[in-house]
């Protein structure tokens, strides 16, 4: 017995099909799929918003990038004078980019020391 499809269902299906096609085109890589990433996390490859400056191996929306962004956020917090989180930042970046690479990524930020009138001794 054929399933009865109403005109309304047809319209809705078409809308879904077109929307998903454009959504995929806009946000996802052509070969969007779950991949086993370096950080042992399941990563959905999504088109990075900053495609020109983002490395392909760390997709913008991934656990790995979230960890890196979180570490960067902590780095900013430490620059404001919260002490004792330097080791956590180094750990986070090392988990994402590897131990040696992370030292180079962190260097430009180490060179900038912002003055803030809460002079707490920081870990450098």
């Amino acid at each position, binding site marked *: 017995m054929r399933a009865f499809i109403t005109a309304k269902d047809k319209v809705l299906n078409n809308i879904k099909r077109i929307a998903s096609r454009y959504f995929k085109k806009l946000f996802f890589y052509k070969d969007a799929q779950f991949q086993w990433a*370096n*950080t*042992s996390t399941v990563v959905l490859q999504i088109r990075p918003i*900053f495609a020109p*400056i*983002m*490395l392909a191996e*760390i997709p913008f929306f991934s656990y790995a990038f979230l960890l*890196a*962004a*979180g*570490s*960067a*956020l*902590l*780095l*900013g*917090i*430490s*620059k*404001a*004078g*919260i002490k*004792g*989180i*330097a*080791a*956590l930042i*180094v*750990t*986070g970046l*090392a*988990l994402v*980019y*590897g*131990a*040696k*690479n992370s*030292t*180079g*990524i*962190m*260097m*430009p*930020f*180490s*060179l*900038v*020391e*912002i*003055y*803030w009138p*809460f*002079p*707490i*001794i*920081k*870990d*450098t």
Partner: protein
Amino acid sequence: MAVSYYQRHVKWVYIKKLLPWMVFGVLLGVLGGNAISEKTFTYSMVVIIIGSTFMMYYWEQQKTQKVPSHWSFSGLMGVLAGFTTMVGNLAGAFANIYFLAMRLPKNEFIGTAAWLFFIINVFKVPFHVLVWETINWSSLKISATLLPFVVLGFVLGVQIVKKIENDNYRKLILLFTALGGVAILFK
């Protein structure tokens, strides 16, 4: 910039004393880091992270912060600080002990430490670029990508630093750091 603000508080005599040791430590780190494999480098970093964490914890538990005043202790701290800043960007745990040993007043402590780290960080750059090749276009692109988060973190930090009253969060951070250090091994 902290370095310019605290310039008047800098005690150059302490920088001159510690800098050669730190430079030696950095060079050891450069040579060591270049000679060993990525895996061994990772292990070294984990040891530094966990070692620094325990040192920070131990230091905070101490009621009286007495440190040896012998020059060899300062030298050892300088070499360790140089090595750890090269391998893990974590010189603070050791360098701060040196400055505490010198019994510097607070502003002199901050000013001298800020200038020392600034000099040593500038000194490290050529080694990162030319020897380790860890600073390159790819790493700069990643740093640029992370920059908005650092700025956001700074804005958040400014709000947080006004509110934080107790030091309980420090123990939690130390625990997370130690766990993270172990997690690197299983990466």
